[in-house]
Each structure stands twice: as C-alpha cells, then as structure tokens.
C-alpha cells in the first residue's frame, strides 16, 4: 500500500517519560481489544524511573515465527509480523522465550500468544499505530523518514541489533546518536552488566535534606 511504504516506525526510548499513554491506547486497538501489547518496562526499577517502551520490532527474519512449532506466526508481504493465528497457536511459549526483544505475551486464559502487530488494521489503511498517535514525547514516532530526519538532526535511525553473535535486522527503527559514535548496530548484549542510568535517585530525600541543613 502506498501510504504504508512511506511511513516508518521510529522508537526512541531515551525520550520516554513513562506516562503510560501508549499502554492505554494500545488496549483500544481493534485487533486485540482490552489487551495492551506494548510493554512499558522499567530499565532498573530499584534505581531509576527510566522506562523503555517495547513494541514488536518486526524482524526481517523473525525468531518468534521460526521457533513456533505450529507455524502460527505469519509475516505479511509488507514485512509486518502478525500476532499468532488463533486456530493454530498451541500456547507453547516458544515465541515468548525466544523473541530477542521480549515482545510476545502469553494470554494464559485464552491459550494464545498475542503481540504487537503494528496496529495492522490502522497502518494498512494509512493511519498511525495507536501508541504513536498518543505518545506526547515522541518516543514512539510513526511517519515518513524526511520528517524524522528534520525533527531529530542529532539522531539517526538504525535497525540492526546484536545479540551475542546474532545480528537481527528489523522493520522498526531505533533512534541512535549521530556524531562521534559510529555504531552500525545496537549491541544489546554488550550492556549485560550495566545497571541502569548513571543518575540515581536518592530514596532518602528527606534525610539528605536535613543532613545538608545541619551542614553535615
């Protein structure tokens, strides 16, 4: 479809303010009513309020679909990896465990895996996905590439991710800095030992306050 070819999805977790608007909007989507498929994950809950919105990245070679024993996950011609086909999914959890981005959700009650399908009912008709429509900070952006290039001159979209020895190329892009860092891909497993953002929140705000008054 013409409109779909023009528009792309760009995510920028650094801009996420954790407002949950995307989670609410996602559960309004017609293809999975009442269930939010987007994950709003705390990066390091004990230490920071930083959140990361995680949608399906629509991998070129989707691990979820390949490990599915029931052949329940299909990719459309325009590269959208769809939610599990209801008659086929045998609720085995393979996709939930194997997706490198941690995207699919097991709805135990329904014995069915469900996941973000790029709001296919909307995007296939030229509309934006629900989450990108409501995101106030631009962490989730859906639109033509020239527009994002103009809006974010300090960032460049990248769509290759490294997990151990595996490189995964995706349809959805993540915003990375331009400039000195010339990473061609985002090495996800390299940060395995990182513990969250450097600016920590002091949980004992009051004692710090008094401490400074006392001049200690």
């Amino acid at each position, binding site marked *: 479809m013409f409109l779909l070819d023009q528009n792309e999805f760009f995510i920028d977790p650094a801009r996420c303010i954790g407002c949950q608007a995307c989670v609410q909007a996602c559960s309004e*989507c017609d293809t999975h009513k009442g269930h939010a498929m987007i994950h709003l994950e705390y990066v390091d809950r004990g230490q920071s309020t930083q959140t990361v919105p995680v949608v399906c990245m629509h991998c070129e070679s989707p691990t979820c679909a390949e490990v599915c024993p029931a052949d329940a996950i299909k990719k459309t011609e325009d590269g959208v990896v769809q939610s599990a086909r209801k008659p086929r999914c045998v609720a085995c959890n393979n996709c939930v465990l194997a997706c490198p981005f941690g995207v699919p959700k097991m709805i135990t009650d329904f014995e069915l895996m469900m996941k973000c399908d790029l709001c296919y009912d909307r995007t296939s008709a030229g509309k934006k996905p629900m989450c990108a429509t409501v995101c106030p900070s631009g962490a989730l952006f859906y639109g033509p590439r020239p527009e994002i290039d103009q809006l974010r001159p300090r960032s460049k979209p990248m769509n290759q991710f490294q997990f151990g020895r595996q490189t995964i190329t995706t349809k959805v892009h993540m915003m990375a800095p331009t400039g000195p860092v010339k990473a061609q891909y985002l090495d996800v497993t390299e*940060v395995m030992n990182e513990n969250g953002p450097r600016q920590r929140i002091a949980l004992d705000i009051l004692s710090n306050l008094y401490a400074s008054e006392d001049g200690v």
Partner: protein
Amino acid sequence: MSKEKLKANIWAFVVTAILARLITLGSGNLDRFDAALVPYTFATLFAVFGITRRYALWLHRPPTAMYWTRGWKVFLLLLHPRHVGSNAILFLRRLIAHYAFNDFIWRRGRMRWLAHWCIMWGCVIAVAITIPLVCGWIDFRSEADNLEWYRVLVFGYPTVAFPIRSLVGFLTFHGLVWSSFLVIFGVLLALRRRLSDHGAAALQQFGEDLLPLFLLFAISVTGLMLTASYTWMKGYGYDFLAILHAITVIFTLLWLPFGKFFHIFQRSATVGVAFYQDVGKQGEQAKCRRCGNEFASRMHVEDLITVEKQLGYRYEMPDSPVEHYQWICPRCRRALLGLAQGVLWNESQAQG
C-alpha cells in the same frame, strides 16, 4: 526432491494404502460398497494423502520435531505406575475441556465460542456419519424376517437393529440434517463477526478465513436441499443437486491439507504441550542469568537453544558467563534494549 519431501510422500503413500486396504476389508471386497459414493471415496483418499504429507512435513520443522520427540518422552514419563492413574484423569479432563467444550475459546469470547462449537460439532457428527458410509464400513440391511427393522452391519458384522419408523430411526437417518443446521448456524454467526468486527476485517484473508466458511455453508445448504428434494418434492432437481453437493464436498476434502482446516490436525499438539509444561514445572527451573529470577523450565530453555542452533541462529555469547542469550528472561531483554540505547547516548555525549 528433498529428503524430507520424499519421506513425507512415502508416509502419505503408506497411510493412504492402509486406508484403501481398510476400505476393501470393511466393505467385503467392495461387496457392501455403495457405487454412488465412489467420487467421495476417492476424494477422501486424496485428502488423507495430502493431510499425511503435510503433517509429516510439519513434523520435520525443528521446533515441531523437538515437541514431537519430547512429547513422546514426556508421555512415557507420565506412564509411570505411580502417576498413571492421576495422569489419565488429567488427560481425559483436558481432552474433554479442550476438544469437546473448547473452553479456551469460551474465554476468548462467548459468540466466537458458540460459532466454533456449533461448526465443530456439526462437522464432527457429519464426518462420523459419512466417512464410514463412504468407506463401506457401515451398512444398513433390512431384517430377513421383519422388513420394518434395520440391522447395522459394521465391517460386515451384524450389530444393533432398530425399527425404521421409530425415533431412533428418524434421528439416525436425519443425522446429516441436524449437523447441517449446526454448521449453518455456526457459519452465520462467524460470518456476522467477520463482517462487523473491524479488527477481524483488517486481518482476515479470503482463502484462509472466509473460503472455509463458504465451503461449509455450501455443503450444508446443498445437503439440506437434497433432503428437501426427496422428502417433499418427489426428487425434483435431485441429480443436479447431487452433483452440486458432491462438488462442494470434494473440493473441501481436497482443501483440507492446505488452509485453515489443517488446524484440526495440528491442534493435537496442545495435549503434548500441556504435559511438556507440567513436566517442566516439576523439574529444575531456569534462572535468568541477569536478574536471577526463574522464568521457564530448564528443559524448555535448553530445548530452545538446540532448536535455535538447528534453525541457524547464533545467539551464543561465548565470551560471557551468560553463554547463550536464551538464558536471559524476556523482562531483562526489554530492559537491555533501553539500557543499550542509553549507553550509546552517554558514549556520544562523553565523546562529543
């Protein structure tokens, strides 16, 4: 031809040959075989060939093959004398809840459930009646001393008898009528949902979702018209209707291995998966090598590592104590994505 395809063809040929032999056996070397049903019999044989072939190819995929072999191993574990009783009860309970009542569809939506349940039972009844007839395994014979009674021959052996003009007779000979009503009702409900639900309308495909409904509807309606023709209209248009009905049935039989109908055979895997998960829960759990929380059974994680390798994925992390990315839980995977991007920005600011 690839090795898998050759193997699948051999399996399909063997199973079809067994069915053909059962047909000649059950019908007394075609003695009790109804010649009018020959097209249906051949379509059934072709369908069995196609279904077996697709099933064999499906079982060959690495994740399916893993579940298949694991499923049998788990099954043998469950046959342990100490647990066999409770496992048999659990097995039956799951079978009834899942297959007979479709409890999981009930939880997905009441209307969706009603539609599926009616279509499923309509089809089950219809298949249970027609396949034995088409294969010549069942035959109705008038009793020699009482023409008002029918005796049912199964594989040529006389079994129960019942009066033709009785409730049992009426219900038996109109079995296909009742099943048609169920199917038509279910198909109309399903179509209503497909036509009015915005989400369903966006995702559905003609061949995958609508064609099966149209086929079932066509079979049921033409079948009912046949009954109406010989019951009330002195056989008006019977020959034409019979051909029309045969076309719809034969097309559906030949379509079985390809489209949505194949899920009937695929869903048998759910029983194996449920027991695999039971055994997994009882065994050692996998702890995420980042957060330390348990997130799956160790067996499942190790099996996935094997399957991913077979599929050509290289999620190994040889320079890290994690060893393989599969040892990281989904929650940490999501957090890592945010962290990795943050690190990139920090590096860029530090250098810039």
